């Protein structure tokens, strides 16, 4: 079959009816394969795992391997399945509401991610603005320089800050050396260290969408405003900022969403008293080996992130439509 198709391939161009039907059928099949292969892959390795997470979040903890009593398994047939509905429980979710630890972890994740996002915006905006107004010959190089740190390992970049921030670290040595402070600043293992870590790690995610929207802007608008007597600062707030809003939204979502579930930064830079939900999930899973509760933590984390993810998706879809 495939040999026939191949030889038909060789003689392409003259066009006999039977061959065109054959090749059309083949291209339809190929077209379907193009869709089916990635579709199936994502179904199996992305969607099904989430259903399993949800299922296990409803099951009960057990001392076994795997350490849970399965809910909704088909081992006992349909009748067994119905019996299991009775055993299924929201106990893990009730447990999450009863223990203040989880509630506080969610709240503090959102607060820390929110503050870090604002800080990243404050740091990233002037850089993106400066890049957008740089001579156009310089812009590709600047862009490359922003992207380059993103290629180096996240873990390495967070690790680099430990040597800088710790009490006998480089920052304190420097500040004490020039005589600004007498006692070392205690930044390591505090929330401040987490803010620094998040701002540093996610800065390229903020700068790139901001730059994209600032670069497209028509700067004669600013000149017009200034010619008409508008002071630069109010020209910024009335013209530049509103026009860059799509970039601001995309950048903030790209920082906020992953920052909420961040594990490496709070674990390495934050203190033991710092609660963040990614770290709680990790501890629940690896230290307490409580798979059902960590699944429940994951489900709630996703529910929290659905709104920002949908904002982000809508913004992406809009940008895609405009690009067409």
């Amino acid at each position, binding site marked *: 079959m495939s040999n026939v198709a191949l030889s038909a391939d060789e003689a392409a161009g003259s066009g006999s009816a039977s061959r065109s039907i054959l090749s059309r059928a083949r291209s339809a099949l190929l077209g379907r394969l193009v869709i089916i292969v990635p579709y199936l*892959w994502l179904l199996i390795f992305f969607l099904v*795992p989430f259903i399993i997470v949800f299922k296990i979040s409803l099951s009960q903890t057990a001392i076994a391997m795997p350490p849970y009593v399965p809910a909704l398994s088909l081992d006992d047939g349909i009748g067994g399945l119905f019996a299991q509905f009775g055993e299924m429980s929201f106990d893990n979710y009730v447990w999450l509401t009863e223990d203040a630890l989880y509630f506080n972890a969610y709240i503090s994740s959102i607060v820390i991610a929110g503050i870090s996002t604002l800080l990243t915006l404050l740091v990233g905006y002037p850089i993106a603005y400066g*890049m957008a107004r740089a001579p156009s010959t310089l812009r590709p190089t600047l862009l490359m320089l922003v992207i380059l740190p993103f290629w180096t390992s996240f*873990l*390495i970049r967070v690790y680099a800050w430990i040597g800088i921030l710790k009490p006998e670290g480089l920052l304190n040595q420097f500040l004490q050396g020039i005589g600004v402070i007498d006692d070392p600043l205690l930044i390591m293992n505090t929330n401040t260290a987490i803010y620094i870590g998040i701002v540093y790690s996610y800065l390229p995610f903020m700068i790139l969408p901001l730059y994209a929207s600032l670069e497209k802007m028509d700067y004669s608008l600013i000149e017009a405003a200034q010619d008409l007597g508008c002071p630069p600062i109010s020209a910024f707030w009335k013209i530049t900022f509103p026009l860059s809003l799509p970039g601001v939204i995309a950048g903030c979502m790209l920082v906020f969403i992953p920052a909420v579930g961040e594990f490496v930064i709070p674990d390495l830079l934050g203190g033991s008293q710092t609660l963040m939900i990614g770290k709680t999930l990790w501890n629940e*899973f690896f230290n307490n080996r409580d798979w059902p509760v960590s699944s429940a933590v994951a489900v709630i984390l996703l529910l929290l992130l659905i709104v920002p993810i949908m904002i982000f998706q809508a913004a992406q879809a809009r940008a895609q439509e405009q690009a067409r």
Partner: protein
Amino acid sequence: MNSGWSRFNVTSIVLGFAFLYLPIVLLIIFSFNESKLVTVWGGFSTKWYGSLFNNQGLMDAAWVTARVGVISATVATVLGTLAALTLTRYTRFHGRVLFSGMVFAPLVMPEVVTGLSLLLLFVAIGLDRGFLTVTLAHITFSMCFVAVVVQSRLVTFDRSLEEAAMDLGATPVKTFFQVTLPVIAPAIVSGWMLAFTLSLDDLVIASFASGPGATTLPMKIYSQVRLGVTPEINAACTLMIAVVAVGVIAASLVNKRREIQRQRDEQAAQQG
């Protein structure tokens, strides 16, 4: 004077880049530190690189990471390119909304959630955790990044080129390999590199998906970092940075040369 390249702009760029690069530069400098104390300079030395190569655990982890990276990036590039073709070419099929959701969601999914869900899948289907499961996990999340990169190139692709090829009798397959693929090749190459670095970089998902015997370099570094900062880790990090930097710079040079070549060809075509 409204060039916009004002003192304020220059200052913010200089400070911004200092912030982005200083920590990495310091890390590299202190990998050449003679002293065992990471933050006290004790003279120049490359001894930590020597001890790095004698550290069997780190070397094994580096080898695992390299293999996982190459295999997962290659498979992810094929799957991601197919996904990008699906997203741009097939605008109407059943479950398209679900499909684009599944492509974009992993980009913003918290790593702990992705890692946990994949682990639970592997346990549910009875797959032993190890090399295979890490690779499968890395393929899954990096193919979505490849899809986005390739898709952004496909959106601006001039489809009349393909139509011309098909009108001249080329089959869809031939058209794809002879017309479409060469045009989107730079995007596919950067997609592969992105997938490879994502795999090289990943700690959280690998920690969930991996098992005994398949410890990746980030997992190894992480477990050592928790015990304290050592010059040896600085040396390992410096080497990882060097590998990635060489790759990225080489790729951008190749891209630039292709671009110049293409412009020349176009000019020649116009004159001829």
